[in-house]
């Protein structure tokens, strides 16, 4: 049975901020698409969507989520980017016993210390990003690093995970500097990184912050001076924003690329028709996750969070986004990840032809093994 005779999905995204292109309105579109594709109804009950812009602010996210749960009786919240807000919402959702899906947040805390029986971490996390990109760069000889890190949960999580990879592979971290979220001028951070003489400057940030760092690094002659940039989190939209001229050669890890196979192309073209941009991995993941959630409600016949979560964890995910995907007891959805490289302008044949997949990171290696998880839900 469905409470209140309606299944309500809350979509909370950054609609206008630094991450708006990565998740943002496109994320809302993806969820809408999923609901529409599902038929707008589940078990004869209507599916409704509410969405909000939380501007990457924890307080707005939390107030909104609380109100959604208390007043609007929202059954599931899916979010797009901010790690700090995610950790806060994870706690709230656990307290209110509602399903909470993280599509864009990257911190591994969500499936470790802060894990919850009601939370699903769907697309990627800092562990996956760090191992994919970190390994590749280290193997390329980049064994001394300096980090420019976004000063909040996501940035430090990404830096920590990458540092672990570097140290495992006998590399050195020479220093790190934190910058506030959506800083505009990176020159001073970049000069500090430059002065460290590290071989690699690791950018533990995302979205516009990453774009600005890369652009300004060029201005100050950092790459031409022999240092290498490691962009730890890059989306298709960032490459578009930078232009291939600036972005070419950037190496990064991603969970999805629209031009990977026929299935991804088919879905992505549909998405492009409504959103006028190709999907990022977050947006694709939000569609996939919503579908999986709705299917689980259909299968169990209830919107009761415990039942739905049980079902979601039992059933395998097989769609354009993930093959053989599985949600573990710590809430981590595991699927294959890809190591990608931004194309040179000469290689690009059309507007969105921007990256090539260099290798596939199989799902068992891509994510933190359960054995290392500090999540109390994991039975050891």
């Amino acid at each position, binding site marked *: 049975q469905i409470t209140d005779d309606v299944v309500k999905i809350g979509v909370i995204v950054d609609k206008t901020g630094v991450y708006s292109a990565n998740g943002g309105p496109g994320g809302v579109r993806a969820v809408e698409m999923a609901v529409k594709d599902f038929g707008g109804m589940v078990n004869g009950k209507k599916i409704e969507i509410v969405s909000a812009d939380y501007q990457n602010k924890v307080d707005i996210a939390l107030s909104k989520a609380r109100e959604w749960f208390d007043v609007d009786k929202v059954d599931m919240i899916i979010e797009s980017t901010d790690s700090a807000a995610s950790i806060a919402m994870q706690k709230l959702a656990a307290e209110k016993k509602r399903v909470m899906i993280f599509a864009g947040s990257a911190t591994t805390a969500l499936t470790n210390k802060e894990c919850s029986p009601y939370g699903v971490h769907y697309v990627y996390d800092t562990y996956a990003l760090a191992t994919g990109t970190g390994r590749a760069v280290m193997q390329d000889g980049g064994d001394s690093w300096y980090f420019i890190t976004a000063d909040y949960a996501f940035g430090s999580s990404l830096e920590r995970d990458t540092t672990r990879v570097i140290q495992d592979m006998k590399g050195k971290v020479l220093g790190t*500097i934190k910058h506030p979220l959506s800083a505009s001028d990176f*020159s001073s951070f970049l*000069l500090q990184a430059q*002065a460290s003489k590290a071989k690699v400057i690791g950018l533990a940030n995302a979205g*516009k912050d990453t774009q600005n760092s890369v652009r300004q690094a060029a*201005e*100050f002659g950092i790459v031409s001076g022999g240092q290498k940039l490691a962009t730890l989190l890059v989306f298709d939209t960032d490459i578009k924003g930078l232009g291939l001229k600036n972005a070419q050669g950037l190496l990064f890890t991603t969970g999805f690329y629209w031009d990977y196979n026929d299935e991804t192309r088919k879905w992505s073209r549909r998405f492009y028709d409504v959103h006028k941009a190709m999907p990022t991995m977050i947006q694709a993941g939000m569609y996939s996750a919503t579908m999986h959630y709705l299917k689980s409600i259909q299968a169990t016949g209830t919107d009761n969070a415990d039942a739905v979560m049980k079902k979601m964890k039992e059933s395998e995910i097989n769609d354009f986004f993930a093959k053989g995907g599985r949600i573990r007891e710590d809430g981590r959805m595991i699927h294959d990840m890809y190591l990608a490289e931004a194309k040179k302008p000469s290689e690009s044949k059309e507007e969105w032809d921007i990256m090539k997949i260099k290798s596939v990171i199989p799902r068992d290696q891509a994510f933190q093994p359960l054995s290392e998880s500090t999540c109390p839900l994991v039975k050891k």
Partner: protein
Amino acid sequence: MEIFGIPLQAMLSQLLLGLVNGSFYAMLSLGLAVIFGLLNVINFAHGALYMVGAFLAWMGLAYFDANYWIMLAAAPVLTGAFGVFIEKTMLRHLYKLDHLYGLLLTFGITLMLEGLFRSFYGVSGQPYSVPEALSGAFNLGFMMLPKYRAWVVVASVVICLATWYVIEKTKVGAYLRAGTENPKLVEAFGINVPLMVTLTYGFGVALAAFAGVLAAPVTQVSPLMGSNLIIVVFAVVVIGGMGSILGSIITGLGLGVIEGLARVFYPELSATVVFIIMAIVLMLRPAGLFGKEK
């Protein structure tokens, strides 16, 4: 070579960057000082108008194909005209009230401007590239100094000194200074003070827009770029001594440099150093470094 364990190279380059930031502080606090001097209004909207200047530059390029140099001239004029509009329709009615109302009004204008640009362009930045003629960098040996940033420093110093000269050394400046003290009397001498006030506001605002256009290629163009800066600039103005033209220029540049130093020696402090200096200055000289005790 090292100073206190910091490579000289790192220090010099941070100092230069500090000077670039200081140039913006100086231009903005100069505009604030000019406006405060004659209108006795703390122009809270200064940051927002700086942002508008930057956005105009960006919009000029995006919609009208007007390049950087055209917009460097056009944006201040347009923003100045908008300032004239603000003064004539709103600020004008507040002069007979407490000065605080001017602050509150311009605060409201700030919210509106930021809100408007936000609802059209989102909070994240729009990239604006360095004009062709200024791209590339000077190799100073210890660092690559992008030509554009060198230009920012030069342009701002020239603008600041020119403004200072006009106000302190010319007849127009004498009218302005006298108008600051007793506008009614200056008017009784036969000078069109209301016009002078309007134009002064327009000029101050145009200065902010000019700084905005200069900043566009450095910091990207975003609706919140002004509000992040304006509070620091307020502190600069307090330290320099409110209303002091020379004070705002020197303090602006100086604090930029000090911030740069702080980034080398104690990066955690770099954001607060301006405020710490402010607190110290206030304890020792309540009217600010160049201010006159009333």
